[in-house]
């Protein structure tokens, strides 16, 4: 390896350069620009102040608390989504990994997560077809005589949560299955041979060993859900805003980029805090 390195080092040195340049120009630079912009104040299209925390002050105190409310809504909805998705996905992954014959597992898994690949605008729209007043559930309840008139289930927090849970159940099924499939069967068999009941095998062996997969999936769920604009915008209605919707309002209606940047920085801070919490959790599991 080292001899070969010496004869052709140039090609290797420069090979990562284009990718690094692209990432620096179109990812790092925009984030820096955003961070700097969040510290400026613009009024009537002109920058009136530099190095000010005015936008952050606006975010946390002004607008009768709508921004802080959006932040809390986002955190609440994302936590609910993460917990519910784990609870729904775990049994599915468990059955796939331990109750389905090995040669069917991969095919069933690919089939079960197929809708994962529908366009996310279309996926939320599809839930609208199911949940709306004229939708499938409402019509079904009426034809069964369980409802006397049309009932709408859309345009509220529950619909947003449902849309999210649908998507992240598939994601978590993938990560939890991958983890469960790696746990050696001998561990569970040894526990059973030593007299552990099926419940004990699960709580003492399988569950603890599968927590890394749960943590990875849960973290991904948290990060992707808290930054998503489409699902709450289509399914959530207008009663409450989530943070990405509030950011988009600043961009779209008032073109207030400094405030939108400050809000994005807050969103990134929340994700970073979540990462730190999850990272610590992962380490504790390994001990």
């Amino acid at each position, binding site marked *: 390896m080292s001899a070969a390195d010496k004869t052709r080092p140039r090609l290797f040195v420069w090979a990562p350069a284009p990718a690094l340049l692209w990432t620096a120009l179109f990812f790092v630079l925009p984030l820096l620009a955003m961070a700097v912009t969040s510290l400026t104040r613009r009024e009537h299209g002109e920058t009136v102040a530099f190095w000010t925390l005015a936008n952050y002050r606006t975010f946390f105190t002004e607008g009768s608390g709508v921004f802080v409310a959006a932040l809390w809504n986002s955190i609440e909805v994302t936590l609910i989504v993460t917990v519910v998705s784990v609870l729904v996905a775990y049994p599915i992954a468990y059955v796939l990994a331990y109750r389905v014959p090995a040669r069917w597992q991969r095919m069933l898994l690919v089939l079960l997560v197929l*809708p994962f*690949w529908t366009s996310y605008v279309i996926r939320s729209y599809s839930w609208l077809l199911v949940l709306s007043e004229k939708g499938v559930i409402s019509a079904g309840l009426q034809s069964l005589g369980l409802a006397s008139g049309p009932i709408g289930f859309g345009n509220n927090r529950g619909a947003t949560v449902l849309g999210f849970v649908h998507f992240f159940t598939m994601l978590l099924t993938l990560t939890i299955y991958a983890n469960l499939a790696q746990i050696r069967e001998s561990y569970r068999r040894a526990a059973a041979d030593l007299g552990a009941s099926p419940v004990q095998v699960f709580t003492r062996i399988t569950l603890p060993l599968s927590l890394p997969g749960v943590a990875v999936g849960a973290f991904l769920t948290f990060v992707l859900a808290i930054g998503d604009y489409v699902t709450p915008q289509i399914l959530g209605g207008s009663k409450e805003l989530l943070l990405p919707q509030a950011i988009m309002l600043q961009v779209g209606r008032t073109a207030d980029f400094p405030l939108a940047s400050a809000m994005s920085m807050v969103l990134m801070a929340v994700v970073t805090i979540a990462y730190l919490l999850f990272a610590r959790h992962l380490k504790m599991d390994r001990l």
Partner: protein
Amino acid sequence: MRLRGSTLASALVLIAAAIFIFLPVVVLVQFSFQDGLVPVPPFKGFSLRWYHKVLEDRRLVKALWNSVAVASLSSLIATVLGFLAAYGLARRRTGWNRAVELLLMAPITVSYLIIGMGLLMTFTMAGVPKSLLAVGIGHVVINLPLAFAICYAQLGEHQVAIERAAEDLGASPLQTLLLITVPMMAPSLAAAFALSVTLSWDEFVIAFLLSRFDVTLPVVIWSMLRSGLSPELNAVGTLVFAVSVLLLLVAELLTSRRRSS
């Protein structure tokens, strides 16, 4: 008896999961064939009229080709850049490797909304107008980490031996790269490309923020949504889903062939 109970419970879990996961997709596809004006029950009979309408809708067809162009070009760039970076890092171990990996993977931890807004602000300052080019640049940013990771995972030591053999036989470094490494990596490159196309094809927020007159398919779908439920939307959605599944199948076949070889 206990065994039978647990088999029944397992079957119930899988059936319930399948119903929950497929319910919206089945409704979407079924009512794309609705012979009526609204894509909700009752189902009034089978008709292809909404598919005809989609194919006659100039705006949709144009957006479709825009999406194809943006997705294929941005995925091509992401795959080439990702492969080159993976090649450089895998073949030359230095103290900087870890830092370069982290930097290249960083975009996957940031929400598309923030990446899109950052680009919008940067482009505005630099005087770059909103355009499909801007959208494509953004899509390379989100796909580059993926392409890099896929190629990096597959560039192993066993290929080094073959590369060295080629050099011993007198091939130049460039010849080795193009005639030996790239063909060996073809399945990974194709998988990275297919996955990038799938993601770019579906991407909405970045495309929404960075385009104005020429737009991609998800952006047109978004604007159609404002006028409410329509079987035409179901038809577009079904078509988009079908393309995604096809791309996914291609990627899956390529990776499984690689795994078995």
